[in-house]
Every structure is written in structure tokens, then in C-alpha cells.
């Protein structure tokens, strides 16, 4: 697995020049029609398709879209406003961002499913106050996961992250393997729950 780079240094691309964009939804990040297989790859080209291309079918780039500008073309950090990643639960949104090369998203707040999908894919969601984000947009940033700071020029800002999520990201741990180590506790729990809530446990279908 790909642990989070320590530290991560990159320019931070604002999705929208001027004002931070609120409510960026997963349909915009990866439209359903760009999800062409049951796998998790081949998605980077469809990333932000409605905004990135003036003609989606011909893949004609819109020169005004931030990620099409030379300065931000290789950005590993995105900056947006409130409620980033709202809408559909599709993890394809995170897979597309990751495949494109994005390793961190800075926003005022995140939709919960998108936030957790980021953690499971070693992409760091960082919540910061809006005035700070407005200053950081377009700048070259250094993200230090161990110290939980984002810094640019002279300023440094602390961010919060759940302890376990931090460990998963820093070490590139697979959550399923991690949990499978606790299989005994799970089996014990189910055994006692079976007597308390027998209706939960259904007969296997023939």
C-alpha cells in the first residue's frame, strides 16, 4: 500500500480562481458515465470531466479550468470550500483523484462518506478555516502528517485527524487486514449477540 508521503510538498490548486468552491459533489468529480468498469482504475481521465473539458467526448481541454493550467497541472493538493465530496457515495471520486496524482484535499468541511473513502485510499482530507484556505489557495505548501501541520512561507497551521486514521495513512495500513487481526473478538461478540438478538441471524440460502 502507498503510505502518505512524509512530508508532502506541492502547489495547492484552487478549483475555482477567486472564490473557494462549495459543495463540490462526487458527480462533478467523476460523472457516472466515466465509471466504465467494475475496477478502480482508468478514472483519471474522467476526473472533473464536466469542468475540465469544453467537449467531454472529444476531450477538448478548457484552458480556464485550474488543473489545465501549467502551474497546477501536477498539483498534488486541491483547495475548496465547504461540504467537499457531497452527493453519491462512489469511491470512484477518490480513486480518480488519486490516479490523477492528488494526495491531499484542503477544505472547510467534507461530506462524511467521501472523507472516509479518502482515508481508506491514503488521500489526506484536511479541514481548515475558510480564511486560512483562502490564503493557502495557489501557494506552494508543505503538509507534515506526523506533526499535523500545513505550512506555506512563514505560516503554519495545525489540523486535526483521528488517531487511527493517522496511523493508517502514515503506515499505509489496509483496514481489512487490520480488522482481521481482531477476528477472535468479532467471533465472541457475534456468539453472545446471537442469543440476545436471534432475529438478526438469518438462515443461509440454499
Amino acid at each position, binding site marked *: 500500500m502507498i503510505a502518505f508521503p512524509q512530508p508532502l510538498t506541492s502547489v495547492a490548486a484552487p478549483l475555482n480562481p477567486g472564490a473557494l468552491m462549495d459543495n463540490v459533489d462526487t458527480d462533478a468529480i467523476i460523472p*457516472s458515465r466515466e465509471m466504465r468498469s467494475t475496477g478502480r482504475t482508468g478514472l483519471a481521465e474522467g476526473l472533473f470531466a464536466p469542468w475540465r473539458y469544453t467537449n467531454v467526448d472529444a476531450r477538448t481541454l478548457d484552458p480556464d479550468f485550474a488543473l489545465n493550467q501549467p502551474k497546477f497541472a501536477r498539483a498534488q493538493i486541491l483547495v475548496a470550500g465547504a461540504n467537499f465530496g457531497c452527493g453519491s457515495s462512489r469511491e470512484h471520486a477518490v480513486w480518480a483523484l488519486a490516479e490523477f496524482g492528488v494526495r491531499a484535499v484542503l477544505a472547510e468541511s467534507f*461530506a462524511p462518506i467521501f472523507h*472516509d*473513502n479518502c482515508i481508506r485510499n491514503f488521500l489526506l482530507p484536511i479541514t481548515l478555516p475558510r480564511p486560512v484556505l483562502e490564503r493557502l489557495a495557489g501557494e506552494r505548501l508543505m503538509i507534515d502528517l506526523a506533526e499535523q501541520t500545513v505550512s506555506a512561507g512563514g505560516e503554519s497551521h495545525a489540523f486535526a485527524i483521528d488517531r487511527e486514521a493517522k496511523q493508517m495513512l502514515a503506515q499505509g495500513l489496509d483496514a481489512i487486514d487490520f480488522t482481521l487481526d481482531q477476528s477472535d473478538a468479532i467471533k465472541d461478540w457475534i456468539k453472545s449477540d446471537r442469543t440476545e438478538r436471534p432475529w*438478526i441471524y438469518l438462515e443461509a440460502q440454499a
Partner: protein
Amino acid sequence: MSRTLFDKIWDSHVVVNAGGGGTALIAIDRVFLHERTGAAALSRMAEMGRVVLDPARVFAVMDHIVDTRIGRKDGTLMQGGEGFITETRTACKTAGITLFDVNDRDQGIVHVISPEQGIVLPGSTLVAPDSHTCTQGAFGALAWGIGSSEAEHAMVTGTLRIARPKVMRVQFDGALSPHVTAKDMALTLIARHGAGGGAGHVVEFAGEAVRALDMEGRMTLCNMATEFSAMTGLIAPDAKAFDYLAGRPYAPAHFDDLYWDGLISDDDAQFDREITIDASTIAPMVSWGTSPAHTIPIDAAVPSGPQRAHDYIGLSPGTPIAGTPLNAAFIGSCTNARLSDLRRAAGILKGRRIAPSIETALAVPGSMAVKREAEAEGLDAIFEASGFEWRMSGCSLCFYAGGEGFPEGARVISSTNRNFEGRQGPGIRTHIASPETVAASAISGMIADPREFA
């Protein structure tokens, strides 16, 4: 210590408390997949050589990209879509998962058929890789949407590792006015408190107006908790919930056990946040922009919002929303395509024709069971006589998968839950509202107040 309903469900599902970090290992009672995002979880599971812990508690359905035209087969109008269907079918068989297949008599939209089958139960935890899983919280379950990786985690381990959310109570006091519905309650909450208003919280819906809703209305209300950015919504189960579920295929025959009575928030339980709304102040609502928060009472004018939203939707501030000309109408989705929704829409459509400007008008039942019940009452004939096309069940044009779409550039009145840019197709402008508002507007050929058709 007194606890909220959420606290009780959470506490009773903690397998391991991670200690101090805030993350717990929570037991998951039910997993429900669909072909669009579930296929990715199933294929990854197979690739990793992992197996489902208890296949009897995992379900799947084909709903998102299935053809909804009468007489459908596996073929879907979405280019390359058939692979999702055939791969999901094979993977479900291999994994031993119960599948509601394309032409199964119990097929339907995941959040409609889960309660119909008695799969979601009060006090249980249920997850699905679909954001509207919160719909099922109407039965007093902790039901929420997750990603495909988490779905795989839940299937393989029977658990999820999650951080404990905060709890908010949204109380609707008083009574709704006539022709105002659960959809209008949800839209009012989001319009007044923002599309991010529920962030970090589980929302318990309570109060007189919530108790007064039937189970279908409660599902509509909980359905939009995700549009409020909440982890999920839930409602304490009462006799209506137990009566709905008793005896359904996967549910207990009765709910007499004392356990069920305990599924309420204690009187003095503390919530992290409380919002109170007077239900009598709610009007039929309709969205004007590109976020569910961009919603106004139907007799109001478009307010001033983000320029981008005005540009996309083509309406400037100050324009009355009623009277906006339309090209299409859609009644469907896990929000508003259950029997009572179809009945109320048909009540308005009966004896009337949709306006000539409406090029596409679709009525898509939430499940095949809903379709059969509606047909038994003759609702299909009313929809068809009015000019609506009557379909098989599925998500249909609630979202755009490619293939089938609305006419280019269409402005649609829709009983769905999302009015995002491009949600129903590139350039399509969506106005979300209740089924009766959709019906009234389809007849008028422009956004119209359902109270004028009652």
C-alpha cells in the same frame, strides 16, 4: 445515564473500543449492495482472495443502471453497462449473497426493497455503498452509506472501524398544512440550515409532525439526511414501524419482545445540537439552483445565490419560481416513488393531460411490488392517460449514466433528491420537489403550486 436512540444502537454494537482515539469497531448486521458500486467491492474481494463472513446477512440488487422500459432484459441503455450487471450476478453467486436480479419479482431500488423485504430492522446496523442508505433510518435502524472499500470491509469482517459521530435532534413541532409533505420538510430543513448543516452528526428526527407521518413519509424525510451532510438520519420506531415490518420475508413475525420498546431516546437524553422547526410554517418547496439548499417555497422568488448556480440554471434573482417553463417531468427514485407518492401524484393527474411543452414525462415505481400495487389500483392507467410513460422499477433518470437521457438542455421537475449540475444529464436543469408538485407542474407546463390542483 440517559442515552439517545443513536447511543443505544451504537453502544450495543461496539465490538472493540479503540480506546481514546475515538474510533470503534462496530458490528454490522446487514450489508446491501447494488450493481453500480457493489460490483467494485465484490471484484476487489475476489481479487484479494477474501470471503464474506456471513453471506446470509448480505444482499444485492440490480437497480442503478437497469433498463426500466417494459419488457427489459439484461441489456441496459448505458454503454458498457451490461458488464456491471453480469459481473455482479456472477460475483453474488460465488460469494453466496442473496441477489434481487433484474427481472426478480421483488426487484426495486435498494432503499425501497430493503424495508419491503424486512431486511432493515429497528435497532440494527445496516450499510450500503450508496449515500441514500439513510432512508432506512426511518425504521429506527442505524443505516448509512459507505464507499466500496468499506462495503468490502463490512462483508469480510462483519464490522466497520468508525469514529463516533455527534448526535443532533431535529424536531418538527405542530402539524403540516394540507398538500405539504415529508419532502417539503426535508427541503425546508436543508434550505434553512444549509447543505452542510448536519456535518459530523447523526440526526434523529422527532416531534409531532414526524410521528404523524406514515412510514413512507418517514423514509422520504430520512432519505435526504445525506443531502444535509449528516452521517444518517433516524426515527424512533413505533407501532407504525413494527406493523410495517412484521411478517415480511426477512423480519420477525412480531415485535412483542420488550427489547423493541427500548428503542427510543430517553426523556432527558442530551443531544449535541438541536434544531426546532414549526411544521405549520412549511410550504410546498421547489429548488431553484444546483444544491438542495437552493430551495424556496413555491410562491417565493429566486433569491440571490452563487453566480455559478444562477448561470447553470438560467434564472436570475427576483424571478418568481412558479411559472418557470418546463420540458420534462420525472416521478421516481428512492425519495418519492413508493405507493403513497404515486397515489398523491395520480390524484392530481386524474382526468388531466400534461402540457404539450413536456417532451418527456416518466413515472418509475420504486419497486416491482410498488408497481404491482399501483396497477392493482389502476394508477398506471391514470399516469398513462395523462401522458406519463409508465416504467419498470429502477433508479432510471434520477441520475445520468449515459444512454437514456432527457431532451438536450431540458428543464426538469423531478421528485428526486439531487439538483446538482449534470446530475440528470449534461446541461440538464433539475428542480426537485414533491410528487404532487411534479404532477401539478407537468400539467401546467411550468412550475406550479400543487395546492391549486387539489
